[in-house]
């Protein structure tokens, strides 16, 4: 098991669809009051509801600190558009954007587009990884100081600091550079849910934050170690990776004691882990797992957002703060700062600096 790091908390604010901004804004503000790192909003082309990235863009100017992480699917979309939209979310939120990359596996989704048939998850995750890869390159394709506004030479930009990405993937290619200048965080935060095998591979290669599922702290620690080892094998610094345990939580009946077996960990239900109990029990569980070094934090999906998120923030989080296990305010302004992740330098700037030295 690895050393304990500071605790990170995130919450999903999706649920039954709402078609106005107010609902999502209230939830995001609630999460912001709890100093959570970020909120996620799930999405797919097949489920009823608004476009998640758009909803969080609508929420951005009405919030200050909370990280905003919509699910963005990569199977039927244009990688160039995806990277532009996520970069723009970072601009409108002043550095609070992430995206949770996901794939579309069903024939029903494929029929909505009519361009390709459904494919196996391994191929789709390979592609999603490539979309994450090219997005990173496009975000780097403008060096931070590319805009010079040099009146003497009449040049708005230094075009030597703009780069073609010339990306050739298995299913697409992109020439670049990006249309959107480098976003405030350098690269918005890439989140991948690594529950399935093919997704875990993409996560180890491309994600900044990895969501995992486990039923015991030991199991969580093992998966975390595996993801970190894989990342290291890809030449990445495992310390620049945050692994969060995904929990579905039902805090519906605060009076009920945890069900038998919960003292040692939540029980598996369906695809993920499912917690039912009171906010205090949840705080205990989070503290216990985190103390054991099983995870960098938790991504909580309340089964009834309006009710449970309130209990998470005013119950669970308040208690964790009281025990000095979780911060009481956002120390920085960007999502990367909340997560303790450095702002990456553009890979092209680095390459240029090296080329200069040679």
């Amino acid at each position, binding site marked *: 098991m690895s050393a304990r790091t500071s605790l990170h908390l995130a919450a999903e604010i999706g649920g039954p669809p709402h078609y106005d901004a107010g609902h999502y804004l209230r939830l995001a503000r609630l999460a912001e009051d709890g100093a959570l790192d970020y909120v996620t909003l799930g999405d797919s082309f097949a489920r009823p509801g608004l476009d998640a990235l758009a909803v969080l863009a*609508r929420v951005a100017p009405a919030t200050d600190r909370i990280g905003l992480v919509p699910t963005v699917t990569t199977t*039927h979309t244009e990688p160039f558009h995806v990277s532009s939209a996520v970069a723009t979310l970072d*601009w*409108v939120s002043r550095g609070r954007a992430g995206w949770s990359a996901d794939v579309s596996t069903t024939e029903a989704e494929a*029929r909505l587009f009519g361009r390709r048939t459904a494919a196996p998850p391994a191929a789709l995750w390979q592609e999603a990884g490539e979309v994450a890869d090219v997005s990173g390159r496009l975000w780097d394709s403008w060096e931070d100081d590319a805009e010079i506004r040099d009146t003497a030479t*009449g040049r708005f930009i230094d075009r030597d600091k703009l780069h073609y990405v010339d990306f050739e993937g298995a299913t697409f290619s992109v020439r670049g550079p990006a249309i959107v200048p480098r976003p405030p965080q350098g690269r918005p935060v890439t989140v991948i849910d690594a529950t399935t095998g093919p997704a875990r591979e993409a996560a180890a290669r491309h994600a900044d934050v990895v969501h995992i599922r486990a039923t015991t702290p030991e199991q969580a620690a093992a998966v975390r170690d595996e993801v970190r080892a894989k990342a290291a094998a890809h030449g990445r610094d495992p310390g620049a990776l945050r692994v969060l345990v995904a929990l579905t939580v039902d805090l519906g009946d605060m009076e009920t004691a945890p069900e038998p077996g919960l003292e040692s960990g939540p029980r598996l239900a369906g695809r993920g882990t499912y917690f039912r109990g009171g906010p205090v029990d949840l705080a205990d569980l989070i503290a216990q797992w985190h103390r054991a070094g099983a995870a960098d934090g938790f991504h909580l999906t309340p089964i009834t957002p309006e009710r449970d998120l309130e209990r998470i923030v005013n119950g669970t989080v308040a208690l964790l703060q009281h025990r000095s296990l979780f911060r009481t305010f956002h120390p920085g302004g960007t999502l990367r700062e909340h997560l303790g992740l450095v702002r990456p330098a553009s890979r092209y700037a680095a390459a240029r600096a090296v080329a200069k030295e040679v």
Partner: protein
Amino acid sequence: MHLAAHFPGVNNTTVWADPRSRSQIDFSSFEQLARTAERGKFDFFFLAEGLRLREHNGRVHDLDVVGRPESLTVLNALAAVTDRLGLAATVNATFNEPYELARRLATLDHLSAGRAAWNVVTSSDAFTGENFRRGGYLDRADRYTRAAEFVATARELWDSWTPDGTSRPFAHEGPQFAISGEFTVPRPPQGHPVVIQAGDSDEGREFAASAADVIFTRHGTLEAGRDFYADVKARLAAYGREPGDLKIMPGVTVVTGDTDAEAQERAAGIRRQQVSPQNAILTAEQIWGTDLSAYDPDGPLPAIDPVPDSEITQGRVRHGDPFAIVARWRAISEAKGLSLRQTVIETTTRQSFIGSPRTVAAELTAFVDERAADGFILVPHLTPSGLDDFVDRVVPLLQESGAFRTEYTGSTLRSHLGLPEPVWKG
């Protein structure tokens, strides 16, 4: 009269060297310009689109403003800081798919409570295509075929929910798209987001007459405007539409001053800022189709012939026959004794309305009265303060004379434009 605000974009008409010029990408710039437009009771706020950075001489063009955010995402954010202003996104019909775009547009309409518009553009070339899976090139006729079926398909999706909120499966089978399933967003508050078309060819006008609510045109002079207006409005009847169903809005610039003379002086100053010496050479290179970096912008026109079919500029439409343009430039240069830069200033910059606020208000009103336009899309030369003068000084005069609204009477963009809600075709 209808008024819209264009966020200044990526061409030399946007003066970035002015000390008042601020970021073209920070959200604060978008917020400020949009709030100004809403303070002026404008119909909508408009964002253009480019999907690849322009190139000149094989390198990224570096003289003009470069870089912009993705339109729909910015407009969703602007919905949070505005209440009534329409929000119009330019989105290409060639490099998108109907299901995804219809969903994103419906989302904007919901999140803004009925203020969304889509400017359907078609321009595509192999150059832009290199950034997309679809890749490649669609020639003009095919581009509009795809655009027309795209809009029709989007309307089918928006209509796949009944107005009272029940979803039904859709199935569209056409030459461009064969798609089916269930649309995941209820019918937008406006029924269908407002559809804008920008394009000038015969195919473009026909497409607008058949499918658009607003047409964004370049015809900014009274004469050309009247011809265009008559031509486009006459096309509507063939589609069973009324003249009022399609609003004609040219993109125009305005320069005001305390007096007409002062405004003229300011306009001349702006033209000089827009055409820097470097920009003069570059503009000439686009016409001549060859490298002119050895020429002096303050000297005479190059004495050489243009190179036809040159690809010196990528990502921008090249207009007209270069031999004819060069001949016209020579004539102007000789007649007025103008240098290369002065000739470029004389021939390429266009300020449509220059004068005191009273003069400008009267001219704008005359354009509408004389059926050259139903309104205007104002293209300021400064980000983000470029509309301040207009909103503070011209709008009150237009309101005083009754030419323009003093308050929004409805909450949706359709209501501002006086457009009926589309009939539901379930």
